[in-house]
């Protein structure tokens, strides 16, 4: 979305609503923001998987994946984990404050190609944020896709994001099966207990005409990829997103490269077939 030609000048957006997904020192907070200028609001379109540079004037910017699908409405949702200087400033924003947004950046999940296929999303911790737009998009265009399976786990039950939405997901029929997991036994927890990769083997999805997308901490992705291979998934059927430190978002500042690929331009969505040859991808 050009801004008088200068790609670095951000648009101003107002925080409409914000709520905490998880608490603690690495709290996760979700923001629903709307652009202040009308023509920016109209001209903006993003696809699931794309990210945006959001930030606070005077503090800085960081690249966060847009966790709302375009089918949900004319707003943007971001789920931000509190880690450094910018995310701390973002966490202090209350409804009515102003946030700077520029983008959308990066490629997107190739949902057009996936038409007619079954969709399997495997998320871990904050990894569910980039996957959420896929779930919403597939639910909105239910007829185009096969059945949708959502696997999502976190360390403890209050580390799970989008809890309220999962209750509703499990009931509605647009999602064929939804599995939640926590790492350790907890009283009052009825679903699976254990790591996400082991839950994946439990659920044992068939690789036939299925696309698997996984996001989460690097250690989880490593084992999920191994298990998916064990289940017979081909490299072209597996997709993941990479995270690297980004500053410009448009392939100029040079720091987000994983080997020859720029995560901000050639990614963040990659198929495992491409990532296999890049040794630095999982560094």
């Amino acid at each position: 979305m050009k801004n008088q030609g200068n790609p670095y000048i951000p648009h101003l957006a107002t925080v409409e609503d914000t709520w905490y997904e998880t608490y603690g020192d690495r709290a996760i907070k979700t923001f629903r923001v709307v652009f202040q200028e009308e023509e920016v609001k109209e001209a903006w379109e993003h696809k699931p998987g794309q990210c945006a540079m959001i930030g606070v004037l005077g503090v800085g910017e960081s690249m966060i994946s847009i966790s709302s699908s375009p089918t949900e409405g004319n707003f943007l949702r971001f789920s931000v984990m509190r880690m450094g200087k910018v995310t701390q400033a973002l966490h202090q924003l209350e409804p009515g404050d102003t946030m700077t947004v520029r983008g959308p950046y990066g490629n997107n999940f190739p949902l057009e190609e996936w038409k007619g296929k079954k969709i399997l999303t495997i998320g871990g911790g904050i990894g569910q944020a980039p996957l959420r737009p896929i779930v919403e998009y597939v639910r909105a265009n239910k007829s185009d896709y096969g059945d949708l399976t959502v696997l999502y786990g976190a360390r403890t039950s209050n580390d799970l994001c989008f809890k309220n939405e999962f209750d509703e997901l499990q009931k509605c029929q647009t999602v064929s099966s939804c599995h939640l997991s926590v790492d350790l036994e907890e009283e009052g927890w009825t679903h699976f207990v254990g790591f996400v990769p082991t839950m994946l083997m439990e659920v044992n999805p068939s690789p036939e005409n299925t696309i698997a997308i996984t996001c989460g901490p690097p250690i989880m992705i490593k084992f999920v990829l191994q298990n998916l291979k064990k289940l017979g998934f081909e490299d072209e059927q597996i997709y993941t997103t990479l995270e690297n430190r980004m500053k410009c978002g448009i392939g100029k500042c040079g720091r987000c490269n994983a080997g020859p690929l720029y995560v901000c331009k050639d990614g963040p969505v990659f198929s495992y077939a491409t990532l296999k040859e890049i040794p630095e991808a999982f560094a």
Partner: protein
Amino acid sequence: MTEKVLQKENWSSFVQALADARELWLPVKEGPLHKFVPYSSEQETPVDLEGYANSSVPPKEAVFPQTETMFRYQTGDQEICPPEAIKERVLLGVRPCDARAMDLVDHVFQWDEDDTYYLDRRKKTALLGLACHEPFPNCFCTSLEGSPGSTQGLDVLMVDLGESYYLRAVTDRGKKILQSVESSLEEASEQGKQAEEIIKKAEGKIGRKVEAEDVPEKLAQLWEDPLWDRISRACLGCGTCTYLCPTCHCFDIQDEVEGYEGRRCRMWDSCMFGEYTLHASGHNPRPSRRERTRNRINHKYHYFVRKFDKIACVGCGRCITSCPVNIDILDILSRVKEAL
């Protein structure tokens, strides 16, 4: 093709005429190093280019400043105002390798989205190049399709004939510049041939070379090779080789606030620094100098080639000269070639 000759006596009137037409930048000696700075007529030291092999800090500083304000704002009212536009300017005394380097860096800043800051400065900057007649011991531009007299990227090429300079306009912008300083110039007769010999002689003086054709493929297979440990062992992880490299273009973006005024600015950054790739979570995909040195060499001789089909190095030799512990890129390339 307009060819002119400038006698060295009226060199200062030539400089003054240039400075009146456009904002003039030229290499001035500051301490032990030459640096491109805007010319001010009341300069104490007389401006001449004797004993100037090449500027220590490349002229990229004129089109890609070390610190550049992207926009200012008042933290209270969130109103963003970009900086004022810059004036037309001319760089005098640019070496041909630096001009070729600017062409290479243009690829990055024009790829897919235009970096308006860089491209605005680039369009308004005319390059008045000076051919080398006394190459530096570490120059190896001839091995990378460069030459002490190459005109790629230059508007005017100057060659030092001894007591006069031979000037040849390469682009029509160069022609306009030569016309605007007509008064101090004379018509050239056979100085053109003299200039060719000087350039030929200078090419012969280039002592160091490398055959770089097969380097990109070899680098692709040397990812886990122990040669990277041996090369990067002495490295200090400082930013000298990248800050002084004309084809390095990496930058960092930071916000600075002073009272209620703030600005977002960008400044040079180096892939050899640790926090260049440090994630906020503390994870660093390139934790030690070994990965960073490997990445720097791969970026210039492998990744850039895969994306733009050109090697991002012009053989100016600054990284060899300026490295505090003498890590020599030609030594690295020869080890890469021998490793397979």
